[in-house]
Structure formats: structure tokens, C-alpha cells
């Protein structure tokens, strides 16, 4: 495993990037403005792109450069722009009906990160791995995932839900770059493609939702129960 034998400098850079990505998910949790989410998500994707380029260089996986370029292009540029376009069409700027205040959400997020740390250390202990980067990658992967689910649970705007789903996958992308950089290139490419298709679908759906339900918040969606 490459991550086990990194030079101290690279290991620190990787840790920095991972922590940066985690902090960005807190930016999303703490803000009410949909544009902030978008920017945070774009920057998070750029960080992941830098990470995969560095990993490609450190481990000699040339195909990771390709993944880095695509990540930056799709997740860092095309997706946020598409979502911005959707936002403009829908005239929504901010989350109106929070179930949980952003400040409370931050605290819950912190608890989730602690849970992630505990699980990561348990796994590390079982595998006899004490390398910081690996444990950190596991922690960040699990935490971003959990925070993504938290976002899905407490945010009601359709665009927030889309970003929540995207964040779930960002966490996995970030973790997998460090833990399993050798995972076949093709799968990663298709995943990127799949994501693009998914977001296109979401965008179309949001428009239909607007047209037929007349709102893009999920509090309007309460007809089907029981």
C-alpha cells in the first residue's frame, strides 16, 4: 500500500488535503446559502483532484492524472455550473425551512466526526495499521459520508439534497484515492460519467418538480404516506 510508505512531506500534504475537505463539508453544514454549498463542493472536488494527481505521482499510477483532470473538470467545474444554472432558473437562494439550526447541525457534525474517528481507529487496530494518513483517510471518508447523510436529513431544498448525495460520493472518492489508488481506472471513469448522468437527471427532475408540485422544497412532498 502506497499510503504506508510515504515521505513525511507528502504524508503531511495528504493529511492537510483530507482535513481541508472535511472542513469544507462543515462549511456546507453551517451555511444557509445555496451558493455557499456550491462553492464549498467545488473546492472540495478540486482538493480531491489535487490529491489524486499527487497520489498518481507518489505511487506511479499515471492513470490517476487522468482521473484528476476529469474530477476537476466534471466535479469541480461542470457540475457546480449546472447546479448554479438550476438555481438561477428556480430563483432560490437560501434554505428557508431548516429542521435543525446550522449551529446545532455543526455540533451534530462534530459528533459524527468523533464517531468516524472511533470506527477508523477500531479498523486500524484490527488491521495493525498505525500510519496517520491511512487512519485519517478512513476517518475523513466515514465522516464526510455521515455528514452527507446529515445534510440529506436536515435540509429540505431540492438542490441541497442533490449536493448531499454528491458529498456522499466525494467522501468515498477521497478515501479511495488514498486507500486503494490501484482500483481500476475504468471504474473510476465510469463513476464520474455516472455522476454526470445522475446530476442531469436531478436537474431535469427539479424542473418537473417545480412545474407540477410548484415548489422545490421537500416539505411540499407529503402526499404519499402510509
Amino acid at each position, binding site marked *: *500500500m*502506497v499510503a504506508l510508505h510515504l515521505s513525511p512531506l507528502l504524508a503531511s500534504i495528504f493529511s492537510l488535503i483530507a482535513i481541508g475537505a472535511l472542513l469544507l463539508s462543515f462549511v456546507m453544514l453551517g451555511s444557509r446559502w445555496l451558493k455557499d454549498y456550491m462553492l464549498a463542493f467545488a473546492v472540495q472536488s478540486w482538493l480531491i483532484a489535487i490529491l489524486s494527481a499527487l497520489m498518481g505521482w507518489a*505511487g506511479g499510477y499515471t492513470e490517476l492524472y487522468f482521473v484528476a483532470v476529469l474530477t476537476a473538470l466534471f466535479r469541480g467545474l461542470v457540475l457546480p455550473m449546472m447546479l448554479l444554472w438550476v438555481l438561477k432558473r428556480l430563483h432560490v437562494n437560501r434554505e428557508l425551512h431548516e429542521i435543525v439550526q446550522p449551529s446545532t447541525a455543526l455540533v451534530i457534525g462534530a459528533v459524527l466526526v468523533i464517531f468516524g474517528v472511533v470506527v477508523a481507529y*477500531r*479498523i486500524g487496530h*484490527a*488491521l495493525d495499521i498505525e500510519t496517520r494518513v491511512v487512519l485519517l483517510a478512513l476517518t475523513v*471518508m466515514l465522516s464526510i*459520508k455521515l455528514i*452527507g*447523510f446529515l445534510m*440529506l436529513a436536515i435540509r429540505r431544498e*431540492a438542490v441541497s*439534497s442533490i449536493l*448531499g*448525495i454528491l458529498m*456522499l*460520493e466525494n467522501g*468515498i472518492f477521497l*478515501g*479511495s484515492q488514498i*486507500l*486503494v*489508488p*490501484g*482500483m*481500476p481506472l475504468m*471504474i473510476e471513469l*465510469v*463513476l464520474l460519467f*455516472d455522476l454526470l*448522468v*445522475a446530476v442531469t*437527471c*436531478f436537474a431535469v*427532475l427539479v424542473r*418537473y*418538480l417545480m*412545474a*407540477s*408540485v410548484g415548489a422545490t422544497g*421537500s416539505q411540499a*412532498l407529503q*402526499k*404519499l404516506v*402510509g
Partner: protein
Amino acid sequence: MSASTLIIVLLAAPLVSVLWSLLVRRAMQWVNLLAALVCFPVSILLLIGATAPRIYFEQMLYVDRIGAWVLMCVAVVYLLASFFAVDYMRHGEDARRLPNFYALFALFAWTMFAAPMANMIGVYWIGIEMTTLVSTFLVGYERRAESMEAAWKYIIIVSGGISIALLGTVLLYWGGTFVLGPTYTLDWSTLDAIAPKMPAVLLQLGFLLALVGYGVKAGLAPMHTWLPDAHSEGPAPVSAMLSGALLNCAMLGIVRFLAATDIAGHGVWPHRILIALGVASLVVGALFIMRQRGLKRMLAYSSVEHMGVIALGFGFGGLLGVFGALYHMLNHSINKTLMFIGAGSAVHRYGTHDMQQMRNLPVAMPGLAWLWLAGAVAITGAPPFGLFRSELSVLMAGWMHGGTRWVAVLFLLLLIVIFIGFLNHFRQMYVPSEAPAPEGPLPGVMTWIPMLLAVAALLLLGLWWPPLFTLWFGQIAHQLGAVS
């Protein structure tokens, strides 16, 4: 024909239908039906020929007996639903959008043929995600507020849920790097080979995450929340495809991950968890069927229940459990398609989803109502239909293992509750009353054909156990590590 030719035909036929619908935009219902008519015998030939697991087309596709079995279930549902679609979709409001419907419908079938054949676990994940993306548009096809709501919930819950399975796959891949080095291809047979040697914690975690992730898609309680909405709000042929075919595709993944833990010797706890999910599904199914008013919602909850039965079968394990679960997959596919065909016709006839407004059914749908009633009796697991056999087999599998005996008793009790609840709704719809006959269109011959075929097949499967099945199921049980 060689197996690779069969695979090409199976994957090409729905695509031809997609292209035809998009480009020619005429007679697409017949082309779609033709594609389904081609796929059905091809899938059977593929199943017969799948004597040993084999890899095709540059490591991309993998066909073994259980995969081919699921493919055949998909093909059966596709065929029956395509017949019915001709009749059902005629009554839609907007004829100009019909080509889009058939294009999506055939594409949906294509994704369900492709996903179970995926060789790499990552590609299987993508395949399952693709089925979601395509079917979302089918669920929301009617563009009513309710169907948009259902489509939205469907895509959010299922995409979120299935990303858990992706995390599981990454962890499993990581586990494999301890055995095979940093770069390798994680496909189903590799997973079985490396499972005993990879770190136990990663295999266990990977299995749990995959179970939850694909369990969302398979509709196992408590991850079933999208299912009643999506299955009830789409057009009826789509509901049939979602219920009868799609759920099996996701169950296949769960079963394969379960097999990996069996082969690695992780003992009974993965089975226990699957059993727990199965019981939860049966409880949820029973409770919500009892006090349901929406006709298609009731059928959707019945799907939750039947996925629970299949989960119990694989959870109990052993020859009987695997036999019962596999047989139940086929029986449920046929039966649920039959039920949704009847439900779609009734909804059109009465112009409502509410069962309390559907009265005097034998008068409203002469003849057809009795076929539908036979299906209702069959789906509650009463003899002499196929589901009686498969549920009995699962029940016996639970009873034979000492530790799960109380689960078997609970299973039986819940089946009785469901039997009473389900048929009570039907009793109210069938008793003669003074209610005026409904005004909606009468179902035509293209509704009769699939319903007759389905009832005949269910009766046949209930009265006669095809001897070939014993051979095939035995092979599958062996491959899954259910018997040594």
C-alpha cells in the same frame, strides 16, 4: 447458439426497441413486444447453458446459474409487462409522449439485463445505479404531483442508499489489496477466492455496508421507504417491472456478498442479519397491508413482504432455504406482474386508486376479475399455486435449523396475518353490491393474454416441480457455499 451469441441477442433486442422508439416513433409498442418475445426464450437458453460460471467479452460480463436465473425472471416480467403495456398505455392522455415511454421502458429492461451480468463488482454497482436513473423517469412519467413526488423520493433515497454499497465495495477492494497487491480486478469470482484470506474486519464491514446499500434497492425493511411510493405511482407496467424484476437484481448482489462471507467461514451472523431484515420486512408488509386503502400501495407492501420471504430463504440457508428462495423469486415475479396488470386495469376502469371505491368487480371486469382473484389467492401463499411451494420450503428450512425455529413460527404467523388482510380487501371488492358500473375503458385482449399466461404458469409451478430445477438449484446452493 453459443452463449456469447445469446448474450449479444439478449442485450441487443431491448436496445433495438429503444432506437426504434426514438427514431421511427411509430408501432413502437409492437417492436417492444417483439424484443420481449425474443428475450424470453434467449434467457431460458442462457440459463440451460450456464453449466459453470463463465466470463465473456474481455472480463466484462459474467454468467453463472444464479445470474442466469435472475435474468430469466427479468425476461418473464418484461414479456408479460410488454403485452400489457400495449393495452394499458393506449388510454394515456398524451399520445405524443408514448415513444419516449417505450424507449425508457426498453432501456429499463436493458439495464436489468446488464446489471446481473456485470463481472466486476464496481460495474454491477453502476448497473444498479443505472436502473435507478432510468426507472425514475418511468415512475414520474405521468407527471402528476404524486408521481413527481414519488420519483423524487425514489431517486434521492435509492442513490443515497446505494452509495453505502459503494463504500462497502471500496473497503472490500482494500481488503483484497492485502492479498493480491495494490492493483487487481475485483470481480465476483475473485471476491470468493480472496474472501478467506482478506482481513476479517474489512470483509465483515464490506458485507454489512453492501447489505444495507443493496438492501435499500431490494426493498428490505427498514430501508423500504421509497418502495410503496415508487411502485404505486408509476404506470402499471412499470410497477410490474419494478416489483417483479428490479428487486431481484439487487437481491442477487446481496446473495453474492453473503456467499463470500460463507466461503470465508464467517459463520452464522451474516445470515442472522439477513434473517432479521427479512422478518422486519414481513412485519412491515403485514401491518401496512392490513390497513391500506390504495390498491397499488397494498401490492407494493406485498413486494416488501415477498422480498422478506426471499431474504429469509437465503438467510436460513441450506438446500431447502436456497431452493425456496430461488423458486420464490420466479413465482413472485410472475405473480406480482399478474397482480399489477389486474390493478392497472381496475384503476383505469374505476378511475381511482382507492380500494373502497372499487366495488362489484366481477361485473366491472367480467372474466378478468376471476383471473385476478386467482392471482390474489396465489400471492398470499395458498395452494395450489407456486408460491405455496416456495414459502413452504422456506418455512421448512427455518424449522429444520434448531436456532431459527422461533423465526419459522413467527414467519408462519405473519403469513397468516397477511393472508387474512390481503384477501379481506379483495372480499370487499368482489361482493355483489348495488354500486353502478364504472365508466372507464374495459381491458382488451392484450390484458387477457399476460393474465392467462401468468395464472397458468403459477398453477403449473404449484402442481409440478420441474426436475431440471432440482439440478440447477443444487448447483447454485453449492456455488453459494450453502452446502458443502
